[in-house]
């Protein structure tokens, strides 16, 4: 499938991603933040599709937007947000935080301007048709051990979350 209007979709989706990022960190109401984050995640799934990574895009939607965000919304509903909205939204060291983040951004700019030659201008076109199969082969072949560790991590996370959230076990 030949991509259609790549620049337009790229700017559209990455603009959406960044806009939602800005909204996430500026909204007072966490629910609105979460909504913005969902939008951003979906836009990012679109970017993955443009990068010929359909499987990652699918996982992004199903896990991130479908799973993790529901968890977030659940928690937001359970804790009292009425009060936290009236409070001060930013902490005392916000200036330091922004400065250091700005420094980080400066570093990025430096790296990408100096090192732009490192990245080939023309992107290779990996075959899209069996992307899932290839990812699967890598996951269950070369990265088998990491994969198993990841599943162990998830198990630990499940137990940890239950222990944390449950008062009496």
């Amino acid at each position, binding site marked *: 499938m030949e991509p259609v209007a*790549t*620049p337009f979709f790229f700017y559209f989706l*990455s603009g959406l991603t*960044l806009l939602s*990022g800005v909204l*996430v*960190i500026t909204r007072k109401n*966490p629910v609105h*933040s979460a909504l913005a*984050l969902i939008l*951003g*995640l979906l836009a990012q799934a679109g*970017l993955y599709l443009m*990068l010929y990574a359909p*499987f*990652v895009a699918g*996982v992004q939607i199903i*896990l991130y937007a479908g799973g993790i965000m529901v*968890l*977030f919304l659940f*928690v937001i509903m*359970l*804790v009292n947000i009425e009060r*936290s909205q009236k*409070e*001060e*939204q*930013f*902490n005392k060291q916000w200036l330091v*935080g*922004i400065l*250091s*983040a*700005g420094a*980080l*951004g400066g570093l*990025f700019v430096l790296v990408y301007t100096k090192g732009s030659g490192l*990245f*080939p*201008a*023309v*992107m*290779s076109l*990996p075959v899209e048709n069996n*992307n899932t199969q*290839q*990812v699967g082969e*890598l*996951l269950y072949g070369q990265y088998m051990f990491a994969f198993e560790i*990841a599943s162990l*991590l998830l198990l630990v*996370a*499940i137990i*940890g*979350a*239950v*222990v*944390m*959230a449950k*008062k009496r076990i």
Partner: protein
Amino acid sequence: MVPITTLHYLVTAAALFVLGVIGVLTRRNVVIVLMSIELILNAVNLNLVAFSRLWGLHGQVFAIFVITDAAAEAAVGLGILIAFFRNKETINVDEVDLLKW
């Protein structure tokens, strides 16, 4: 129009990363801090997938691992948040100033 290269994606990811860092460093609400961490992880993912266009699918595999990690992190983080809220009736990070209560 300039053709879209890897660098474009990297710049987007970098900007997203910086946004996430700002969120983590300046917000008080734990939920939003956690969401900012998700932003950071997503920026990393975008980078990984963009690189996988150049150097094979390993980047995508790593992106999947990162997503798994994010799920685990969110679950535990939100679990801690609930335990915290139950004890302190607040969800502000700068009020988490005790190691034990």
